[in-house]
């Protein structure tokens, strides 16, 4: 289930040996792949290599061709009296901390809430498919729009959230959700969780429907408590799907940009690694330094992705 690559139905007995037909098919296969591979090379592989290269230069956004090689000084540089570069920039480490904080809290909440909602919607009831369709609405709303809607709802003076909490007596004073440094990260997390719980729910629902029903019948016949069944049967069986969902969400959260940019713009209390990199690249026009930040973010994501692929492979081998 995790990284089992889509399998080709190519066990055709007809083409078991190297025949002219098969040779023609192989040629056609590579021909058919070429446009897609060229496109990905143009928009992904080459730009990525250029970003790596820019991170070793003093390139400027106005003219990237006039860049000169400066080694690793964008990363770390000793200028005679002290260290400079991104690796000693407190702003960068602040962005790293913010991104990790955001990722851990929001992915944790999304997984738990997504699982609970999926368990709820796995129960058969009238109107279930309507409810399932309606909970997809947050997923379909563009991130920018949901960030705007929530920043209106979280508005310190006129927002409905403050109004509601004041009238329920939960708070005495309106809260400045997006401006207060101690609250703004929570505002970002609230919006992100709201938007992505439907996705996790869908994955969990699909996984729940693939569970074997005979264990449950056996458990019911034996009179085992439902909570016990959940911990001992459902949760272990759901683990692979939970891991897939968690990895997808972790990789997405590490590169978070839109919601933070719109909700709190460049405020340092929520700045993520992507926001930091783009600020240096575009606003400060410092392509060399910004590319160094992008490269570091890429490395973090790549390590996690490779770990996931490696573990997925291992899991696959164990199973087969």
């Amino acid at each position, binding site marked *: 289930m995790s990284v089992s690559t889509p399998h080709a139905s190519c066990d055709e007995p007809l083409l078991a040996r190297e025949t002219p037909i098969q040779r023609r098919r192989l040629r056609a296969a590579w021909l058919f792949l070429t446009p897609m591979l060229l496109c990905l090379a143009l928009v*992904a592989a080459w730009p990525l290599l250029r970003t790596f290269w820019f991170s070793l230069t003093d390139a400027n956004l106005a003219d990237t061709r006039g860049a000169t090689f400066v080694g690793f000084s964008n990363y770390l540089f000793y200028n005679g009296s002290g260290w400079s570069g991104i690796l000693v920039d407190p702003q960068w480490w602040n962005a790293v901390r913010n991104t990790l904080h955001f990722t851990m809290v929001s992915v944790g909440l999304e997984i738990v809430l997504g699982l609970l909602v999926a368990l709820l919607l796995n129960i058969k009831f009238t109107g279930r498919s309507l409810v399932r369709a309606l909970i997809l609405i947050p997923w379909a709303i563009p991130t920018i729009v949901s960030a*705007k*809607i929530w920043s209106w709802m979280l508005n310190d003076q006129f927002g409905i959230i403050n109004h509601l909490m004041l009238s329920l007596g939960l708070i005495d004073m309106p809260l400045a959700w997006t401006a207060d440094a101690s609250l703004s990260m929570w505002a970002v997390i609230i919006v992100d969780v709201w938007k992505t719980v439907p996705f996790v729910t869908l994955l969990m629902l699909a996984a729940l429907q693939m569970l074997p029903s005979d264990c449950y019948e056996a458990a019911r016949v034996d009179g085992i408590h439902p909570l016990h069944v959940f911990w001992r049967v459902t949760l272990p069986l759901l683990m692979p799907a939970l891991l897939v969902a968690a990895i997808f969400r972790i990789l997405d959260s590490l590169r978070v940009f839109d919601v933070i940019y719109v909700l709190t713009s460049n405020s340092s209390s929520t700045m993520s690694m992507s926001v930091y990199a783009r600020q240096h690249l575009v606003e400060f026009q410092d392509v060399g330094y910004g590319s160094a930040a992008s490269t570091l973010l890429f490395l973090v994501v790549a390590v996690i992705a490779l770990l996931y692929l490696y573990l997925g492979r291992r899991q696959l081998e164990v199973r087969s």
Partner: protein
Amino acid sequence: MSPRLLKKALLRLGFWCLIGILLLYAVFPFYYAIVTSLKPSSTLFEVSYWIDRPDFSNYAAVLHQPSFLKAIGNSLVVALCVVTLALFLSLTAAYALGRVKFRGRGTVLMMVLGVSMFPQVAVLSGLFEVIRALGLYNTSWALILSYTIFTLPFTVWVLTTFMGQLPHELEEAAIMDGASPWVTLTRVLLPLLWPALVTTGLLAFIAAWNEFLFALTFTLTDTQRTVPVAIALISGGSPHELPWGLLMAASVLVTVPLVILVLIFQRRIVSGLTAGALKG
């Protein structure tokens, strides 16, 4: 009432309460955006949970802004072109990856999966250079080209999964009749793939319609903006007084088509998303 019946009734009540809370949580923010968008600016700052008399002045104001209409047009063009391009490129690729066993197949699939995990900002400076070198800066083509980086991996992956599930007898028959791979793909397999194409096309459309970082970076003038950037840049007299009514009207206008699409194609979208993640 016997204790057992009482317990059952309470359980049912609790269940429906949970469903109610869930629906409120999922739908309320969008509902509240609609409520706000239908208020005249005089009552905007009084919190209310429903509308007595809808006032359409915010919508009239938004629709009279030429730059907003232009942004909707740009978004439509970009999203439709991205869908066409991504579906064409991934359909041929998915035939190769889903129907033919060849050396390097696993590597290609892993590469495609790897690209889908890229942080977008990691290619930003390199892509900026490519776009400027091709003379596409501040045009819709810049976005159409760059959006393939996140649509292609996904469409290739999902279509390969669907392609692999088709029975191979059909293809064998076509080969026996001497059909070339191109004819096999377009005449034999394509008619069976329409549902999968609709699903992946829809998901690619939504992703392209919602994209923000590239659109913000690769376009400069109001005439080239897409909807998310146009909405993010709506501002009032000062940074602290945004025209909330106008903003919510614009938000509702660009979201309603998506919500309708999602409600109509719910089943397809779910199958596409889960095929991309779980079976993939």
